[in-house]
């Protein structure tokens, strides 16, 4: 238990550091996937330690939502690239609500 709690915590924090540090939108989306996977690992380890199947179903649904999120995010990135010829995240400073 000890080991998997700390491992998934470290993976989650690596994802957050990458999210703050990097500027390329595609890499930001990848850091979000890394954080989702850290949560999945924690859920599976809880499922193995409490001998329950429900957390694995939740992991299944997290994978489903991550797939939908990746498609929408990538199409937004393609649209932004088509308009501005760049995938820099600071490009969204120009948005006026």
């Amino acid at each position, binding site marked *: 238990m000890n080991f998997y709690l*700390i491992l998934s915590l470290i*993976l*989650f924090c690596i994802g957050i550091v*990458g999210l703050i540090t990097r500027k390329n939108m*595609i890499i930001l989306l990848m850091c979000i996937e*890394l954080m989702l996977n850290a949560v999945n690992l924690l859920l599976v380890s809880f499922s*193995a330690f409490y001998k329950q199947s429900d957390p694995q179903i939740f992991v*299944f649904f997290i994978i489903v939502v991550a797939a939908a999120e*990746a498609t929408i995010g990538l*199409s937004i990135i393609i649209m932004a690239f088509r308009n501005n010829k760049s995938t820099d995240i600071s490009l969204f400073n120009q948005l006026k609500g």
Partner: protein
Amino acid sequence: MMTIELLKYILGGMTIASALLVILSKHPVRSVLYLVLTFFMISGHYILLNAQFLAIVNIIVYAGAIMVLFLFVLMLLNLNEKENPRKNDYISLISVLSGGALFLVILSVLKEGLHLQELPQMSSVGLVEELGNLLFTKYVLPFEISSILFLSAMVGALLLARKDKKTNEHL
């Protein structure tokens, strides 16, 4: 038993190393490939935790489908000319500090969980039969709703990424 413990720690170290390489490597394509490696390591952890079905699904869906989509978009955009601009050192120092602070805060919250003991009895958790039973009885409503989610995601992606004649004229 001993070799499994050893394997767990080796795999954990390699997972952390490849996750660090994802955020440290300069080139985006290398970053994607290291992320695929990380997903394979995490599937290895799933197998060690006796969740065979999820390990296979993780490889097929994450490493196989989602990461190939990322790679495809990355090659489509062709970002070679102006490599990724870095934020300055000040921001990266702050981000490492805040990530470390978050790590310590969550660790202090989870302190009690560190002493959890594994329940002794054996079970069929993680096998396809058990998961399928649960998915089509207790969780059948979320399962059906996720199909609607996929349909809307598909339509949304088509709408967003479509080349629009009218908007392209004045750009």
